[in-house]
């Protein structure tokens, strides 16, 4: 303990900047994103062009929606590991059903497992109090099994990507990816829900102190069930968008997005312990991860070194962000 006398010294500039950023956690994140983009541009001059930006956004969007699922579940202290399976299922079912069915019917069929898995997750977590990690892991195993059984029944009929989804997933209009047409309202809705609706409030409150919400009259299971169904439906929609982007249905289509979606939410400042965070940060987090992937693809180095670098950068970004935002 120092024995300096207390003199109310003027707040130094560094500290003021820090406090400014701590109050607006989005700014340091965006700065980090810009730094990554600048590095990319330095490595490959000319890469940052309109086409590249459109492509980056296209790939960031599915990740950002799934990361939205993680953000919302993480606010309640949960996590949803079944989003990958759900997205894959709805994509696969859509692509195979649309061959013989009306697209609207195919869409409904595709969303069915999403709702179902969300419901089961919600009941397991909300009523039986199973840990979300285990619950969603279990349902994703079950979902994968079901998809594989289903897959055998449709081999003969083949698969087709509806034109609309392909347009939405890959199309670009006036330099803007068409997917933004779906994403901008969706993101706006998530942000609004979290900040300005009773449901959003409850997500934060439940994650912060469940007993307190109970005493205030909140039924935990209702909130949690609604949450996991929402998360699953969002994942289902992501699946449809993603199949339009990738245009090749497979049985593990969206699985590779699961861990990055968790990482995007965390990089974006959402606490995995619940009660803290928001969606705008997550969006930037998803962009950071997507740019990082490109960056590492461009680098000429052995795959092993590339992965090491990826891990280190994710760690560094998160740590730097926390340092900046924490004002202690």
């Amino acid at each position, binding site marked *: *303990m120092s024995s300096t006398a*207390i003199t109310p010294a003027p707040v130094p500039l560094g500290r003021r900047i820090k*406090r400014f950023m701590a109050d607006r956690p989005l700014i340091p994140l965006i700065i980090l994103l810009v730094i990554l983009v600048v590095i990319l541009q330095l490595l490959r001059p000319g890469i940052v062009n309109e086409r590249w930006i459109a492509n980056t956004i296209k790939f960031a969007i599915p990740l950002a929606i799934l990361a939205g699922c993680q953000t919302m579940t993480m606010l309640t202290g949960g996590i949803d590991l079944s989003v990958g399976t759900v997205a894959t299922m709805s994509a696969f079912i859509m692509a195979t059903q649309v061959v013989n069915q009306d697209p609207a019917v195919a869409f409904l069929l595709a969303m069915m497992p999403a709702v179902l898995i969300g419901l089961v997750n919600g009941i397991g977590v909300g009523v039986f109090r199973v840990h979300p990690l285990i619950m969603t892991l279990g349902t994703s195993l079950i979902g994968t099994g079901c998809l594989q059984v289903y897959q055998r029944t449709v081999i003969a009929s083949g698969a087709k990507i509806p034109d609309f989804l392909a347009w939405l997933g890959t199309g670009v209009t006036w330099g803007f990816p068409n997917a933004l047409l779906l994403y901008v309202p969706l993101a706006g809705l998530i942000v609004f829900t979290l900040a300005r609706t009773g*449901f959003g409030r409850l997500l934060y409150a439940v994650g912060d102190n469940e007993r*307190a919400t109970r005493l205030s009259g909140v039924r935990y299971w209702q909130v949690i069930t609604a949450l996991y169904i929402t998360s699953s439906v969002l994942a289902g929609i992501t699946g449809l968008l993603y199949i339009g982007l990738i245009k090749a249905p497979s049985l593990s289509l969206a699985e590779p997005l699961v861990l990055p979606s968790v990482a995007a939410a965390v990089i974006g400042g959402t606490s995995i312990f619940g009660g803290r965070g928001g969606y705008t940060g997550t969006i930037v987090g998803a962009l950071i991860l997507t740019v990082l992937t490109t960056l590492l693809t461009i680098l000429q180095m052995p795959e092993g070194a590339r992965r090491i670098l990826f891990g280190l950068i994710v760690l560094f970004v998160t740590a730097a962000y926390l340092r900046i935002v924490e004002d202690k």
Partner: protein
Amino acid sequence: MTANPLLDASGVAKNYGAVAALRDASLSVLPGEVHALMGANGAGKSTLVKILTGAISANAGRILIRGEARDIRSPAAARRAGLLPVYQEPSLIPDLDVLSNLRLTGTPVEPFRAWVRELGIPDLDLRETARDIPLAVLRVLDLARALAVEPDVLLLDEMTAALPANLAEKVLDVVRRQGDAGRAVIFISHRFVEISALCDRATVLRDGATVGVVDIKPGVEEKIVELMLGTRVVKTHVAARTAAQKAAPAPARPRIAVRNLRVGTKLNDVSFDLADGEVAGVVALEGQGQDELFAALAGSIKPSGGTIEVDGQPAKFSHPIDAIRAGIAYVPGDRSEALAMQRSVRENIALPFSAALRNWGPIPMRRERATVLSAIQRLQIDTRAQGEVQRLSGGNQQKVTIARWIAADARTILCFDPTRGIDVGTKQEIYLLLRELAGHGKSVLFYTSELEEVQRVCDRVIVIFGGRLVDIFPVEEADEPALMRAAYGLPRGARADVGILADPSANPSDSTSANASDTPEAAP
């Protein structure tokens, strides 16, 4: 007391971001003295204790132990330096049994056991997991654990706040003997009675700075209050019920009628009524079934027998929402049970608005702000750190838990020890508020661990002992000795010595002076 100070801290400052928890605190404790640390809620008492014991680090300040500068960076280091705290929140590891908790801190078991017995808990099972032990007992165990290593300086942060009178008494007894044995105790409490009975000197903090050190002698309370509150001195006191108020006609139908209520083995055959416009007190020693009574009325647990009628209609509560729908709100004694600590004051107050499914949609922000603001103003909540409730002081947190139900306009409020750990000024505000609510036709059920509050707030008092309702007093008869005897399960009119603080005749100067400083009008 001419010896050198055991502990001497000066110029201690601590900032949490923009909030200055401490600005310039000093504290000097002599060997053999029990030293009170006083101050309003949020004055920085707990912060000072945490700094002295290495739980948090200060931004500035100097700490001397026996005249030597010591660098105390962790609770373990404080322990080595002979400083042992009992913090405001229990510090036992919830998932370990008591024995393991002792082993973890290297506390000798036998002295611990002896202290526990001495402190009034004869039958403690050391194999019990801390999580399953009631809060009051946990506090006592925390104290016994500290005593067992015979510290030079014992720091007790609101040790008695959550204790029932019988346990509090033992604690005071033990603390006094610590002082007699040449050790020093720093004692934080908002109860003047305890301070007068126990302490030699008091250091008073206001807004993070030490504003005075006084010797405790009869009549000094008024001075302390002045120091504590500065210009904020509250002169309006709640009078005992006036004749006019008492004469209010009893409503034809009680707001809530409890009949033969039973909860497991904890609560048995309890029946009483609660009328609109009344504050009914509940008095009981620790663990006599009052927790279960409140929980059952609040819909938190299901009773195993008996009925609850609301406005003449039988009610069955399977979730707190059912009780809330019936207009019954519950304010738990433990703030951490009621508040989402990382959320803002506003969100905490508005929480019940969003509970029902049909209110999950967009929030009418303007209306909400108005409602919340009026509740905040009504309770005079200090909202400087309103971004996160955890940054408010204990007293302000407590106000938020009540403000929520004022905003939601609940008809009946179940207040479980709402003044636990609250400064005199705030206490007065809460008494006033409860009376005001009753004046507006609301009904209040009010459990308190401080008997003197009964006279100030309640119209009637329900006494519970061993899970049974043993007596219902009208307020005029509910003086502290009578209540105390009833709380111990003794029949009305019996005369028995039950403790130094309960019976004014046993310690006249302390008790009267406390009353004099606090509520002159209420003196018997």
